[in-house]
C-alpha cells in the first residue's frame, strides 16, 4: 500500500471550502433574524392597523348616528326656544291688559275727595312697550300744599297706583286772582286764583 500525500497548491481563497465561512454564516443568521423580526413586526402592525381601521369604520358609523341624534336634540332645543318665546309673548299680552274702567272708577273716588280739583283732559297714550297716562287738571286757589296732598293721596292708593311708576315732571301753572283771574271759571263769575297741572304717569 502506497501512502499518498495530497498537496493543494492553490491559494487559500481559491481552495474548495468544505463549510461556509464563519463570518458569512453569522452575517446571514443575524441578517435573517433581523429582517425576519422586522417582517414579523410589520405583520403585527398591519394586523393592528386593520383592526383599528375596522374600529374606525364602526366609530364613523356611530358618530354619524349620534350626529343625527344630536341634530334632533338641537332641533328640539330650538323648538323649546320658540315655544318659550311664544309663551312669554302670550303672557306679556295677557298681563299688558289693565282694566281701565276700574282705574277710572278708583280715580273718580279720589277726585270726589278733592272738590276743588277738576279734570280738564285725560288720555292714555300707547308708546312702544310703555303706555303713559296724561292728566291735565285745574284746582281752585294757589296753595301748592293742596297739590302735594292730592299727589300723596294718589300715590298712597295702592289699588290705583299699582300699575304706575311715578309722576313724570309735573308742571304747575298758577293763575293769580283778580279781574283777569279765575281761569276757565271766569265765565261763571269766579275771579279767584287757580292752578293748572300737567302731569304724566308712565304705566309700569
Amino acid at each position, binding site marked *: 500500500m502506497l501512502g499518498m500525500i495530497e498537496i493543494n497548491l492553490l491559494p*487559500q*481563497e481559491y481552495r474548495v471550502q468544505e463549510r461556509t*465561512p464563519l*463570518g*458569512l454564516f453569522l*452575517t*446571514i443568521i*443575524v*441578517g*435573517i433574524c*433581523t*429582517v425576519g423580526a*422586522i*417582517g414579523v413586526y*410589520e405583520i403585527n*402592525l*398591519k394586523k*393592528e*392597523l386593520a383592526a*383599528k381601521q375596522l*374600529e*374606525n369604520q364602526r*366609530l364613523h358609523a356611530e*358618530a354619524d348616528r*349620534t350626529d343625527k*341624534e*344630536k341634530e*334632533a*336634540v338641537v332641533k*328640539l*332645543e330650538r*323648538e*323649546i326656544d320658540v*315655544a*318659550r*318665546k*311664544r*309663551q*312669554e*309673548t*302670550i*303672557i*306679556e*299680552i*295677557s298681563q*299688558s*291688559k289693565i282694566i*281701565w*274702567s*276700574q282705574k*277710572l*272708577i278708583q280715580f*273718580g273716588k279720589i277726585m270726589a275727595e278733592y272738590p276743588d280739583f277738576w*279734570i*280738564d*283732559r*285725560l*288720555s*292714555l297714550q300707547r308708546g312702544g312697550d310703555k*303706555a303713559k297716562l296724561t292728566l291735565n287738571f285745574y284746582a281752585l286757589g294757589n296753595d301748592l300744599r293742596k297739590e302735594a296732598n292730592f299727589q300723596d293721596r294718589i300715590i298712597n292708593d295702592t289699588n290705583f297706583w299699582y300699575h304706575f311708576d311715578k309722576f313724570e315732571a309735573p308742571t304747575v301753572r298758577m293763575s293769580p286772582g283778580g279781574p283777569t283771574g279765575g281761569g276757565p271759571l271766569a265765565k261763571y263769575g269766579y275771579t279767584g286764583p287757580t292752578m293748572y297741572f300737567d302731569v304724566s304717569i308712565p304705566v309700569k
Partner: protein
Amino acid sequence: MSKDLRNTLIAVALFIALAGVMIYFVTDTQDQLDGVQKENSELEDKIKQNNDYIKKAPALQRQLNELNANFRDYVKILPSAEVATEQRLLRTVQAYADAAQIQLQELSQRDAAGKKGGGSKMGEFQEVSVNFRIDCDFDSFVRFLNLLERHEQFMKVNSFSVNPSANTRIVDGKEIIDLGVQIEVTTYKYIPSKK
C-alpha cells in the same frame, strides 16, 4: 480583500438594504396606525360629547310637551283667527255701545302689525285694532269701557283720550258739557307659522 470578507460585506450590504426597505414599510404602517388611532380617539371624544348631549333629549321632550300644553291653555284667552276679525270687533263695539246707550261718532281701523317677542319672528300673534270716537258723559264712558274690558274674549283698551266736547247741552236749565272720547281697542289672534 479576501473572498470571504467580500462575500460577508456583500451579504451585510444586502441585509442592510433589505432591512431598510422593510423599516420604510414599517414606518409607513406605523404612521397610518398613529393616524387611525388619533382619528379614532377624536371620534370617541365626539361620540362621548354627542351621547352626553343626547342624554338631555327625554328631559327636553318633556319640557317641550309641557310648554305646548301650557300654551294650548294660554292661547284660549285669545279669540281664534276666524273670530278675531275687524268686522267681528266692530260688531262687538256696536253691541256694547248700544248697551251703554252711547252713540259712536267716528271709526277707523289700524293696519294689523306683528307683536314683538316670540310671535314677531314667526308673525304668530297678530293685532286687530279699531279706533273710534264717542261723545258721552263720564259715567257712560266708564260703563262702556267696562263692557268692552269684560268681554269674554281678550280685548284690551290700548289708548283713550278724554277731552271736553266743544258742544254743550242744556238739561233742566243746567249746562252739561259732554266728553269727546277717543278709544282704541285691540285684540290679538294667534296664527301658527307654517313649518
